């Protein structure tokens, strides 16, 4: 029997030791949450995506709710890298939680120069959001295909010595290949995944619900899809997988870890329950105590798959 409080919640992910496996998803975290929780309780903090240039973001409306989730097209409003280094970075120095900086750029070279510039004291890791459109590839996201993912990851790897996490898109039929390409090019971890490309139309006006016409679906509605992608990626790579998609409870986090995640990111759930991450951390601990699991890291890829003839398993050949 494990005594209460004996559970080891720490995990090692992509070159970082985290006190627990729970962190925010980029874009759903900002200073305002310090009114709700102490940031030193989190495994890591992940910033909103930083770009080199000033970006104003997309036209309104930027969010539309759906059953079990929401579609957003915020458009990465950014005050630019200089503002981040001057204002945001010093703010997080008050906390001892690893600061992961999410970055985006329209070209592989742009990614690399941003990563290089942000290889600063106080920044624990870079999360490259390669789900954004690549202007050199006709607007297709870098993470849509292994080749472009490999190229941008390699340039990033050459540009920074910081732990490099690469955030993949779920909007590809080749997520495991893309993960393998990122690993081959030097990524220390992959974040699986981002929002799923989606659309909603208002039946009163016949107009798209979002100013950007299309957006990304997040929330519980996408969880089973991303759990599957985490599983596919965890089978394909040796580096840690960070699960991200519709996690709102400790049970969801456990499921992601069983599928292969070493750590998890929580996003949309925070919009409904601002202290959701704290509840998930507490719940993970309680789960481990209940199931007599001494280390939360023991859950990673703990999915039990009975011996079977591979040919009988439909998912082997199923293209997502």
């Amino acid at each position, binding site marked *: 029997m494990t005594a209460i409080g004996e559970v080891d919640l720490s995990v090692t992910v992509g070159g970082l030791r985290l006190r627990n496996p729970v962190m925010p998803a980029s*874009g*759903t*975290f*900002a*200073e*305002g*949450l310090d*009114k*709700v*929780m*102490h940031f*030193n*309780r989190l495994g890591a903090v992940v910033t909103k995506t930083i770009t080199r240039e000033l970006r*104003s*973001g997309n036209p*309104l*409306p*930027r*969010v539309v*709710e*759906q*059953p*079990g*989730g*929401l579609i*957003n097209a*915020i458009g990465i*409003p950014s005050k630019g890298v200089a503002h981040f280094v001057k204002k945001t970075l010093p703010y997080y120095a*008050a*906390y*001892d939680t690893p600061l992961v900086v999410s970055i985006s750029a329209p070209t592989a070279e742009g990614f690399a120069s941003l990563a290089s510039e942000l290889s600063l004291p106080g920044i624990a890791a870079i999360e490259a959001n390669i789900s954004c459109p690549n202007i050199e590839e006709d607007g297709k996201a870098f993470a849509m295909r292994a080749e472009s993912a490999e190229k941008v990851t390699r340039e990033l790897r050459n540009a920074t010595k910081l732990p490099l996490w690469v955030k993949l898109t779920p909007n590809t039929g080749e997520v495991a290949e893309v993960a393998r390409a990122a690993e081959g090019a030097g990524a220390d971890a992959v974040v699986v995944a981002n929002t799923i490309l989606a659309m909603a139309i208002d039946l009163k006006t016949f107009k798209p619900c979002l100013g950007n016409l299309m957006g990304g679906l997040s*929330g519980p509605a996408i969880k089973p899809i991303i759990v599957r992608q985490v599983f596919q990626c965890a089978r394909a790579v040796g580096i840690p997988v960070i699960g991200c998609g519709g996690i709102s409870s400790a049970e969801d986090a456990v499921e992601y870890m069983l599928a292969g995640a070493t750590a998890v990111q929580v996003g949309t759930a*925070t*919009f*409904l*329950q*601002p*202290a*959701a991450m*704290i*509840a998930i951390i507490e719940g993970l601990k309680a789960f481990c105590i209940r199931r007599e699991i001494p280390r939360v890291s023991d859950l990673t890829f703990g999915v039990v798959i009975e011996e079977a003839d591979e040919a009988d398993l439909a998912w082997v050949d199923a293209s997502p």
Partner: protein
Amino acid sequence: MAIELVRAAGVTAPPDIDDSQTSTSPWRPSVAAELADVLGNEKVNLEYRHLRVRCGELSAKAKPGQFFQLLCPQTPGDQPYLRRPMSVYGMDPAKNEVEFLYKVTGAGTRGLDRLEAGDRVDIMGPLGVGFTLNLAWRHVVAVGRGAGLATLAPLAKAAREAGVHVTAILSARRPSLIVSDELFRSHGADVVAVTDSESTSGPANVERILRRLISDGRCEAFFTCGSSRLMRVQQRLAKEFGLAGQVAMEQQMACGIGLCYCCVRDFNVDGEIVSRRVCWEGPVFDLMEALP
């Protein structure tokens, strides 16, 4: 026994956080989500409902102009997913109560409409930046329309407690839809009701009323919510007479606490257009910087 309409348990960060790893003073939450007990949820008129809840100390300390994000009950017909922002209509720190005045307009408010005394509702707050009262003022004017009246009502109470007199101009489509006039009067405010049906609510007439108040020395600052047209009138007069002003703005929100940048609006700050989050930098803004 009241039906259980609550969707999810409120989660509050435990107060006993170990701060030993930081040099800052002991951390305490200043925003929390909690399950509040519904004390009443009555029809005020055909459109508006008045929700009163028993809450924790933190929520009951809300300031005029601040808001809460309510997790609206899901019903068989409606599945509101996101919380709905609701400005605070009244607060009583002695009794640990907060009040909301809302109009039933969509999936979220239809869900709220089903709440009965004895139910519980998940409220998150207090959120945002509220009104600021300058104690040097003796007379201020509050101009509200529709649900904007709810936002201004607690200001009238705070103004009275600070010894500042309020003239409230309450605008609605017709007299039966004027809400809160008695509440404003009970807070010591003079009330001027203007309505569309009586053709008194147009910008020209409201401007006439405001000009008289200004010339009588009874308008040192404007507080407004709920009407772009009336806001523009006040901006013009504030500029002409060098008066201060604050406006509480509305916008569709998702997180309510500055994370998602869903609720941005443009503001004119010294000639430069600046994007701000209504939930975080507002919802109360300088009148002169607001754009309709």
